[in-house]
């Protein structure tokens, strides 16, 4: 699989709305740059969402968990809507991603505060608070959409559909640093995450500080996911499906799973984006392709190796 990665990435760079083929370095330099940037963005965002997905699934011990489950998507969407409707989004390349990011982090803090019940945060408490806070954020978002101008509505919806075109290389580099650091930090917590999947009590008996681990992992995963969402909007399905696919391929040990998810998720998203911008005359939102590809592929894997899936 590792050998396949550069091959797939090269293919991605060769695909685009202006034609299939590697853009010439001299005459088509900008197009090459555009494509390379999108592929790089896909790698970063895909890695971020997949790693966050792996960690959320481990902490919440739930195969349906994904990075948006604790309100990251609703919070980020609300932040973006606020930035767009108030008009500050056009002020600078950092503004919209920053607003989305900040709102997402606030949302997580709120979810955590609401779910506190004694010593360790309970799983059901977290999920329930996530649902509640998500609902509130979504309603506020819908309210903003309803009172905005048609242009504003168009802009908000367009942002929410998800897009890998960045407005500034600096923003991409910053997000890249955040994501790489965050994913590395999560990988460093692999053995704690492994132990956590056995349940809070068993993890405690194995010598893990359960509460600290959960908070740190949640924080890192949310930071990484929020950074991704701030830049690229709400790209769905990657954070849910890639962890399962990689778990099927390399096993459930997080020391192998997290790096595999990062690479697998990055390549998957880059490939989906390449398809999204090439197959039709108009660019399809990348989230559509991730769902259309990811779902059937996962089903195929499920059928092949029944014993190794979580969902039995």
């Amino acid at each position, binding site marked *: 699989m590792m050998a396949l990665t550069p091959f797939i990435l090269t293919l991605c760079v060769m695909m685009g709305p202006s034609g299939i083929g590697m853009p010439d370095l001299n005459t088509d330099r900008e197009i090459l740059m555009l494509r390379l940037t999108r592929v790089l963005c896909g790698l970063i965002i895909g890695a971020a969402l997949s790693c966050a997905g792996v960690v959320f699934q481990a902490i919440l*011990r739930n*195969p349906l968990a994904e990075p948006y489950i604790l309100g990251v998507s609703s919070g980020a969407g609300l932040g973006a809507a606020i930035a767009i409707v108030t008009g500050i989004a056009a002020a600078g390349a950092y503004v919209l991603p920053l607003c989305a990011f900040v709102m997402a982090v606030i949302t997580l803090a709120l979810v955590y505060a609401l779910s506190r019940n004694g010593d360790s945060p309970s799983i059901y408490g977290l999920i329930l608070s996530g649902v509640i806070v998500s609902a509130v954020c979504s309603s506020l978002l819908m309210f903003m959409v309803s009172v905005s101008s048609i242009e504003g509505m168009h802009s908000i919806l367009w942002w929410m559909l998800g897009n890998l075109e960045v407005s500034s290389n600096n923003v991409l580099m910053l997000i890249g640093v955040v994501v790489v650091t965050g994913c590395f930090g999560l990988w*460093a917590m692999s*053995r*704690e995450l*492994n*132990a956590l*999947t*056995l*349940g809070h*009590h*068993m993890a*405690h*008996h*194995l*010598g*893990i*500080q359960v509460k600290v681990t959960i908070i740190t992992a949640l924080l890192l995963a949310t930071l990484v996911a929020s950074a991704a969402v701030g830049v690229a909007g709400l790209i769905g399905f990657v954070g849910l499906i890639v962890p399962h696919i990689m*778990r099927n391929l390399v*096993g*459930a*040990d997080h020391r192998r799973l997290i790096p595999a998810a990062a690479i697998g998720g990055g390549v998957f998203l880059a490939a989906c984006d390449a398809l999204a911008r090439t197959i039709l005359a108009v660019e399809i939102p990348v989230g559509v392709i991730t769902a259309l590809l990811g779902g059937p592929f996962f089903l195929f894997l499920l059928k092949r190796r029944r*014993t*190794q*899936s*979580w969902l*039995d």
Partner: protein
Amino acid sequence: MTTAIQLDHVTAKYREHPVLQDISLTINSGEMVGILGPNGAGKSTLFNIVSGLLTPATGTVKLFNADLRQMPPRERAKAIAVVPQELDIPVPYTVEEIVMMGRTVSMGRFAKPTSQDRQAVERAMVYTDVADIRHRHLNELSGGERQRAIVAMVLAQEPRIILMDEATSHLDINHRLEIMQLVERLNRESGVTVLMISHDLQMAAEFSRRLIVLQHGNIVADGIPSMVLTEETLRRVYNCDVRVSQDPQTGGLSILAAPRLPAAAAGKGIQIHAVAGGGCGEATLRRLALCGYTLSCGVVSQGDMDAEIGAVLGAKLALEKPFSPISREALQVAQDLAFKADALVLTPIPFGTGNLPNLELLESALTAGKPVFIASGIGNRDYTPTRQAEKWVQTLIDRGAKPYQDVAELLTLLPAKSG
């Protein structure tokens, strides 16, 4: 002798509700201790306190003379490990991966498993006999194999104390034995201190060298099994009648719960004297007792099964020495009992010359005008040389004793409480 676990005046609460009351306890290294008690006694709470899951409201907990509260989790995991009742693991780990998790705190954060780690895992898997299923996934295994894998994980942790929290409750008898023997071997060979909670009193008695009984958050008994497992203690703690006996074959203690007798019944206040023996009167005695009749029984030999049953049922007994023919003294005791009875029943017992005098009781009763009931089929049960019993029973029937086929019929014939 090092102290493995020391509890001093520990009180534990769950949200202001006290569960353990001022417990002080010392467990030495290498001991194998069973923790018993009814539901709600505080056994699991005790384990939570000792393993650090719950902080005591008052008092101190020390593991190997180090205060548990100050102990960093790493050290604690190296000192004490827990085998849970069952582990619901949704993620599909292989046996080897699960066992490797036991090395969680022993391994470095970024380092790959060292040879030391691998050896510990290998040893653990061999010890628990899961080495040849190491690549199978946990959800494919049987209950016993799963639990063995989990015990292997705990062994790989190389703790000095192991807590087994009803670790065999969900297993079949053979798997249960497997795990217990494994743990016992571990305790014997490596000196690991073991504490086990079990509702299987038998198994706890069998494998523990010391038993601690909890009730309402207090320790009510602490000592060797035969001293702790008395009917008195068990009756008080579990609030039901039990019989403790020693199994002749295995030598192990056998604990049976005796069902409590229902209160109001047809026979309340009526005394029946039953002639029984050899275990043949058992069914009759039980049914009569269930219906509330006050029972007396005799003459039976000491140690006879019907004597034991009668004693359990609370019947007054007229006893004779074992393997002796019925003496006049014993018969007199029986006569006194029969005199107080409202009716007499001859259960379907075999007769020999030894217990023939019992039939005199029936004679006297008939003379006194009391109802007498005789189980039919005496002809098959007469082992006297001249078939005396059969003839005698016939005369009794001629004089007014009523024959009955089975217990059901007997119950319809017996005098019952009116209204």
